[in-house]
């Protein structure tokens, strides 16, 4: 049930949130053919829409990863809350 540690699940979660937001916004930019991105696309008119769909799907994939890593984060938090926090004697 728990296949990621606390650090990697938080990492993946943050990365996926960033990825989802950024790729979805990029998808919108490609679909509306914003000028700034013209270097990233070939010259034919269908290319824009193509890239936009790629972006949307990748964004969706990141959203799925995000949900999974959030679930892992919750599992990790519950797991860690059972152990009391301890430290060695500091002198």
């Amino acid at each position, binding site marked *: 049930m728990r296949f990621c540690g606390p650090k990697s699940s938080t990492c993946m979660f943050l990365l996926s949130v960033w990825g989802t937001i950024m790729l979805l916004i990029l998808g919108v930019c490609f679909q509306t053919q914003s000028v700034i991105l013209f270097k*990233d696309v070939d010259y034919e008119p269908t290319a824009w829409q193509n890239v936009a769909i*790629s972006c949307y799907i990748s964004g969706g994939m*990141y959203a799925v990863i995000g949900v999974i890593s959030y679930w892992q984060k919750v599992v990790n938090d519950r797991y860690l809350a059972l152990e009391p926090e*301890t430290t060695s004697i500091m002198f």
Partner: protein
Amino acid sequence: MASHPSEGNKLLRSTEMAMVQMFLNQECAYDCVKELGELGAVQFLDLQKGVNVFQRSFVSELKRGDELERKLRYLASEINQEGITVPLEFDLPQAPNSTITDLDIDSMTTSLETELREVNKNLAALRHSYIDLMELKCVLHAADQFFAKGSAWSTQSVYTAEEGESNRHLNFVTGVIERAKVPLFDRVMWRSCRGNVFVKIVEIPDNMMDPDTNEEVEKSVFICFYQGNQLEKRVKKICDGLGARTYPCNEKASKRHTVRDEVTTRLSEMEDIISQTVEYRLRQLNDMSIEIRGWIVKIKKWRAIYYTMSKFSVNEAHTGFVAEGWVRVNDLESVRQALVKGATIAGCAVMPIMNRVGTAVTPPTHHYTNKLTHGYQVIIDAYGVASYQEINPAIFTVITFPFLFGIMFGDMAHGLFFFLFGLYMVYKEKHLEPRKHIMDEIALMLYYGRYIILMMGVGASYAGLLYNEIYSKGLDIFGTSWLMPNDTEIYTSDDTVTLDPSTDYTQPYFYGIDPMWIMAENMLTFLNSYKMKMAVILGLCQMTFGLFVSLVNYKYYGKILDIWFTFVPQLIFLWCIIGYMCFLIFYKWFFIDSGKEQPSLLIAMIDMFLSFGEDISEDDLIYEGQKYVQMVLVVVALCMVPIMFAAKPLIEQYNKNKDTASYERLSYDSDDEELIERERNEAQARLDMWVNQAIHTIEFCLGCISNTASYLRLWALSLAHSELSAVLWDMTLYYGFTTLPWDEGGFILLFLIWAFWAVLTVVILLCMEGLSAFLHALRLHWVEFQNKFYGGEGYKFLPFCFRLILENEENLEEISNM
């Protein structure tokens, strides 16, 4: 800690300090010092500085404290070795409530320590015996093998022929040796006994733990047959020399079996004893671990109090102590109250006396800071602690540091990440604060700088808006000001279009760089010029501000000479050269048409000095009358140099002569030795003054140029950042978009490439570039800004405070190193 002042300059200057003298009675000294330690407001002076360590008061108490601390350290290390942990502490440890001797801690610690050492020793001895018994068992087992191989090894069978020749009886020695030494053993035996001994080795299959080193060692059993006394001695010596342990072994199998049975029972007994001892030890350590932290705190406080008291001087009657120390002026009342409280706790009839005294010694520097300003104060203090009551650069750094960082970083999205990261740490402050001690060093650095990171994020986002950069792409928020031609042919081909600013440009873009530049081929040419000019202008602003801060410092210290003959010439010199350059920059931006060939500012500045007095050619002319204006500026600037160099020393010399003139007329004898000595000293001081002035003058004049050029790093780093960002996008995400269309799996490629791009953005652009921009912004503050006004020769106010001592061990260590 003590209370903050309610009004007045908290951060602009260091706070006013007062030297106080306290008279403490012997009875109440300990409690008063304890109360002062809890308060943490006095920095005691060492009144017994020249006194030998062993002649100070309280030597015995300090020795006892050291002993106790050593024992506690031993106990703590034993506890930690077993991996016993304790719950995290969220509150500061409590103050000790016993007063003078803490005898119970002393006796308890000593008894625990001796007991633990006993237990450890016994455990080691037990383990050694256990190993010995194991080895004996192995020997007995192997002996079965030796003697069971038929009568060939039987000692009596060798000499069956002749009777009465009992001296031909073969003896043997059995023992255990490390496997690594076996070949050596064999060889030595063979050589030294000339082949007259017979050695047989059997390996012990299980490895055994060496109790001393806690490692596994491989061992073998050996049996060595020899004849005669001489060989016996030799064999025994060799065995001793090679560290082989010999065990007695009987030939007869029956006797061996009885011995083996005994050994087995003893071994199992030993195992029981050892496990019981280990359990007992662990139980002791666990019990100790619950209370040991409290003891450690108490002993540290006890030692700190006695160390501080050993700094006091004793009055003649040996009834009381005199203490001197620095106190912040705002804390004087609280210190008085703490003394009274200490005296009442001790039940002393005589109240301690506290007087404020005047002194010629420079007081320590202390700035009142809060959570936000503390980080900035730390990075300023890292370069040098401010002199007493000079203007503190940290207060300006709060805004200028994030701003300059932003100029060098300049990306809206990256700035947003910094901001969010800082915001997260600030939000989780209360949660992270007590867990500081278990953070690793890098995380701790980031945590301490959380407010700085927050502000840096704001600065970077703002600069990103200015540079119109988000992940190296731009945003068209306000509508571009460039008019693209309506000829649609060109939009389908690969050709470039040239737009002329005089015809294709409407009005300046509302805020920031026009997004059209992001797509231009000559973007870098334009941006470089823009960023360099901006860097120089910002540099001039910060340096001028630094000069005005020096003016405020001179006024505060009453150095009128410095105002007229250091500040004014410096300002004029700086502005005649660099200020004029910035004026030219603005003039060229505002008043020169874009249509014609642009005059170069660099050539203008160079020719200002090299072609002094010559006419300026038509191509290089920026404005009418330029030649004469520049001549005047150069002459004025050069005139400032001798004023900076000579004016102050000459006037000071004149003043001194005027003061001593009347005095010198009184001494008639010019051969007086004292007079000659004084004159020599005066001459030396005069020379020093001139040399000092020369150094400062040269430093400032050359520094004008070099510091201004140094500010160009604002341009350099922002260029590096935007280029890195662009290259990263073009080398990774570009391929994610263009390689495959979506129905051929382009989205999987994009998915993977985006992750790669994101990781590289974090590692290179955020971490590496962020650190780099942080460092350079800091350097600009430390060197280019602060060398205009900063003295930085103060020392920090470090009061005697238990909280400080407990939080960082170094305080007490350097104290106990006296």
